[in-house]
């Protein structure tokens, strides 16, 4: 290997070498993946629609476009009122989880970080369990409200992250990213214990709680999309604007500080944005594991290790991945739905191993 990399005329010094950044080719590929997921997600289902007609019908949603797709009124309704919102929600949730995962990995300089690292999962789990068990106990008064569970999940997630932050801050000046991760472990364990206790006392609601814990994209039309969209915009804007700073953070706090960065400030801003996005995703779709860790890593292996590449591509490929996974989740065992969290892990695991193997062969 060193032989081949020795200096020589094969490395003309005059050649223009660009710094790491998002190449147009990858951006186009990401956008293409999103489009494929969109058309496939809307076409496939109990009633299969021709993808060409679906694509035309999607174009019709653009202002000023009027084309004949050959679909009936009822089929058009399936497209715009049932399937499209679900696919769009999948794109938003998957994009948010992958983006948040990538941001956490950069902020903590830890490849194992995922969006649930700071207690989001446990906090949402406990809050939803409280609502569902109390709701069942009091004759469904609470669970009858459609927005109660998402609201509980949202508040629970952010509450858990706030607890983790306060606990980590108790370390004082010697507080480090590792302190925060450990605080997240403690908070998660504490909240999970509370959830287990409640579930054990209210065994009748176990199924309701678990169906939520395993994640699902079954939606009430555009309502969920409207709820998630603002958080999606805020989170992606903040995280994407800081993508170069994450590269600077990769040399550690001390060196980043001597390069003129305020490492703590950047870190907490990114954590806040990523946690907000994760909480919104969790409140809409439950706990969908795996996306936040597998997608950024796949992007890192294939497209490059700079966060200027990882973050925007994670947003696109994460969305496409989840929307496509949802197609499998609702068609594999139709008319039953497989929980999407199960499908992400079943598909994502082998896929990631494949990427790892190919990447290693290409790199060495």
């Amino acid at each position: 290997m060193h032989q081949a990399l020795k200096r020589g005329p094969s490395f003309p010094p005059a050649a223009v070498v660009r710094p790491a950044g998002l190449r147009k080719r990858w951006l186009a590929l990401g956008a293409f993946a999103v489009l494929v997921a969109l058309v496939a997600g809307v076409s496939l289902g109990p009633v299969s629609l021709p993808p060409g007609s679906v694509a035309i019908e999607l174009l019709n949603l653009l202002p000023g476009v009027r084309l004949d797709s050959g679909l009936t009124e009822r089929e058009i309704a399936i497209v715009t009122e049932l399937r499209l919102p679900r696919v769009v929600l999948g794109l938003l949730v998957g994009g948010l989880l992958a983006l948040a995962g990538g941001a956490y990995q950069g902020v903590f300089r830890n490849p194992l970080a995922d969006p649930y690292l700071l207690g989001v999962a446990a906090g949402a789990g406990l809050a939803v369990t409280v609502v569902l068990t109390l709701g069942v106990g009091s004759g469904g008064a609470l669970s009858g409200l459609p927005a109660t569970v998402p609201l509980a999940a949202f508040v629970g997630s952010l509450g858990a992250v706030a607890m983790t932050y306060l606990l980590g801050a108790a370390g004082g000046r010697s507080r480090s990213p590792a302190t925060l991760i450990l605080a997240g472990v403690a908070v998660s364990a504490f909240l999970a214990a509370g959830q287990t206790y409640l579930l054990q006392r209210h065994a009748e609601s176990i199924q309701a709680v678990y169906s939520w814990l395993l994640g699902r994209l079954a939606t009430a039309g555009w309502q969920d999309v409207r709820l998630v969209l603002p958080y999606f915009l805020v989170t992606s804007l903040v995280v994407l604007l800081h993508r170069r700073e994450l590269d600077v953070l990769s040399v550690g706090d001390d060196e980043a500080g001597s390069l003129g960065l305020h490492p703590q400030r950047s870190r907490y801003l990114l954590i806040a944005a990523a946690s907000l996005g994760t909480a919104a995703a969790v409140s809409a779709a439950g706990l969908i594991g795996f996306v936040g860790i597998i997608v950024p890593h796949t992007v890192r292996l294939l497209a490059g290790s700079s966060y200027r590449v990882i973050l925007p591509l994670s947003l696109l490929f994460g969305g496409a991945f989840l929307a496509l996974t949802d197609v499998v989740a609702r068609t594999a065992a139709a008319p039953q739905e497989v929980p999407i969290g199960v499908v992400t892990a079943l598909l994502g695991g082998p896929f990631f191993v494949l990427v790892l193997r190919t990447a290693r062969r290409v790199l060495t």
Partner: protein
Amino acid sequence: MIPPPPGQQPGTESVKAGVPPAVEVRDLHVRLDGVPILTGVDLTVAVGEWVTVIGPNGAGKSTLLRAVGGLLPAPDAVRLFGTPLGALRRRERARVVATVAQYPVVPPGMAVLDYVLLGRNPYIPPLGRESAADLAVVDEVLDRLDLTNFRTRELATLSGGERQRVFLARALAQGATLLLLDEPTSALDIGHQQEVLELVDRLRGEHGLTVLATMHDLSIAGEYADRMVLLDTGRVAAAGAPHEVLTETLLSRHYRAHVKVIPTPHGPLVLPTRPRRHP
């Protein structure tokens, strides 16, 4: 502060009238987690000078460098080119002083070009991206350090000597004229130690850099430094030209070492000798 040794005013030849020193530390106290690390350190480094801080393990050398680099709260005790550290914003400070850490973090997967480009961070708007001018500076630095052919190589695959050149390149890309080197040669063999230190000295001459370094190898330290400062338990124990600091008396007192010092035209050679047994 230890009074300057008779016969020579350290660094005076490079101090022009009215030019404030590159580094001026007055009565610096640093406590870390309640433990006093530095207790009243004074230090002056004239513009263009090379000063090396020596001292036994735990004397506070790295802490002194971190304080000068602005990584520790010491707002009034440290002045850089006449400006108190506290008056400089982070990005301004990073354009004045660049640090090469003792063990710089090597981010996995990062190419040499991208790593050196990190040095332009203080010039890139917080949420913006690098300009053509930033890239031109990086290209020039890479060229000057003979690293152009390494641009696309992953930093992690480089040898120790090559990496040290890349670390220096990032510091130079900062455009700072004060260079803080914490044990710049501790990971290198003797040949690469000389290569890196010669390079630093050449750059110092070409670009009017000021160098404040810490080093463990006393003989090599003495060969390159204009002046040396011996630090022990958080205080300056001695300061002056290498032949004034590298003496058997001072070294045996502060390092508890048995050494023989041999004067040479290049500077004193410090040889460790085995203590004689008393039967």
